[in-house]
């Protein structure tokens, strides 16, 4: 029973990592920028979720609205922060991104307060009996279902629509894609919208699970997501998904079996460091 519980716990955590890391790997694939500020959008998504629900909005509306708003803000970050820097060395964009991330934390502190925010009446807290004697909160089930749903939609979009094919072509060779009429700017906007919206979804989900949103809640996920996409092979979406789940599971089991030595985040980073030492090229070898 403990095994199942830990597995599910790990799956839930892994799904959240996947939602965050996906946006990061999508941006990296397209622009070769390490988009550190991405984690700030995750935090913002969480704030929007709580604010909308506390203002009387249904949780579904909160999720959708938060995703759309944060998606649009993601496009804004591309337009105003990254686009002007694209012909500069990638280090410049990375520094801009880190600056943006730090600035965002301070802005959240000023606007939303330093002590965090909670749901006045947390939704989706009821326990659901999955099978005899085994209960799981609705919010956890929600995390898994929504992650699988949105990641599947993304996979379908990329594989089976003309926009998705144009998107992958742009990742592969932007100049050639452009020469056949692919509107590169449009692809980038879509890319940032989707990646940011997924981060917002992760934010709302974490808000549901922990019922606390703080200005700095993006910091640890920011580091982890960076390590995850490196582990996933920098640029590989599939590798990123696998690395996210692996990290979630390791954290979940590690906290029980090694929790007396190291705390949760320390276990995660120890795992990431060890794996990257053994396989610096990432879990999956790119063909």
């Amino acid at each position, binding site marked *: 029973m403990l095994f199942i519980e830990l597995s599910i716990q790990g799956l839930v955590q892994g799904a959240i990592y996947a939602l965050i890391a996906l946006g990061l790997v999508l941006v990296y694939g397209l622009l070769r920028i390490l988009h550190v500020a991405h984690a700030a959008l995750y935090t913002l998504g969480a704030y929007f979720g709580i604010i909308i629900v506390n203002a009387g909005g249904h949780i579904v509306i909160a999720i959708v609205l938060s995703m759309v708003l944060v998606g649009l803000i993601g496009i804004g970050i591309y337009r105003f922060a990254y686009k002007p820097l694209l012909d500069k060395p990638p280090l410049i964009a990375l520094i801009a991104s880190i600056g943006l991330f730090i600035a965002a934390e301070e802005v959240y502190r000023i606007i939303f307060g330093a002590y965090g925010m909670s749901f006045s009446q947390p939704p989706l807290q009821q326990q659901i009996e999955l099978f005899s004697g085994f209960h799981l909160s609705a919010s956890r089930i929600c995390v898994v279902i929504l992650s699988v749903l949105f990641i599947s939609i993304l996979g379908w979009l990329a594989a089976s629509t003309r926009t998705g*094919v144009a998107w992958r072509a742009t990742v592969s060779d932007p*100049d050639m894609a*452009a*020469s056949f009429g*692919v509107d590169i700017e449009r692809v980038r906007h879509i890319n940032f919208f989707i990646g940011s919206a997924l981060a917002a979804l992760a934010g709302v989900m974490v808000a549901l699970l922990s019922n606390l949103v703080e200005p700095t809640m993006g910091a640890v996920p920011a580091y982890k997501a960076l390590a995850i996409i490196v582990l996933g092979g920098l640029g590989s979406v599939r590798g990123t998904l696998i690395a996210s789940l692996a990290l979630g599971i390791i954290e979940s089991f590690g906290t029980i079996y090694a929790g007396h030595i190291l705390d949760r985040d320390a276990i995660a980073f120890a795992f990431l460091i060890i794996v990257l030492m053994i396989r610096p090229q990432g879990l999956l070898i790119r063909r």
Partner: protein
Amino acid sequence: MLKVEELTCGYGKMVAVNNISLAVAPGQIVGLIGANGAGKSTTILTLAGLAQAIDGRVELNGQDITHMPVHERVDAGIALVPEGRRVFAELTVSENLLVGGTRLKNWQIKQELQRVYDMFPRLAERRNQMAESLSGGEQQMLAIGRALMAGPELLLIDELSLGLMPLAINECYRVLEGLRKKQLAIILVEQSTERVQQVADHVIVLETGRIVWRGTGDEASRDNTIVEAYLGLT
């Protein structure tokens, strides 16, 4: 149809090609030859919108396209078969073709795909294979097919035979003749002179970014020694 007048072009502000003029009409092949670094690719890329025109004028069917953004040129009727083929490695053959047909309407796609597959049956057999798993010759066919999906009037081909076996080269040139019969205007860049002289209506020799010789294909064959001298072959 295509008219290039005193074009100076390069990368950013760096000039690589100076003051060249040329014209291509439908059903014509203009051969562009020259040694490494002569500026052949730069010329082609400028016409495709991937390098910058710095001075001069490019006109296609009477429309000034000198500074037209790259993704709009396909609508003007230009398609590129780039140096090194540059197929989308991790896309399948049919997806590569689909990107070539980016500007087509949904209902046109199937028919255009079929047209390319009829021309290149080998691509049809491999339609669900990753482009990177194709042989060099097949990748070149894919690059040509991808460009044809765009329904171009002007086809820009950079290094058609580079790195290909004689058999594959023959096949590429057969295709080229077929396209000429369909009234496409073609600019063909090669490093070797022989094939180009046979197939081209006009031959232009570039050296360090300038035109140093021009004439008909026949003249190029007759003046072979002159042309080869420019290429540093004799």
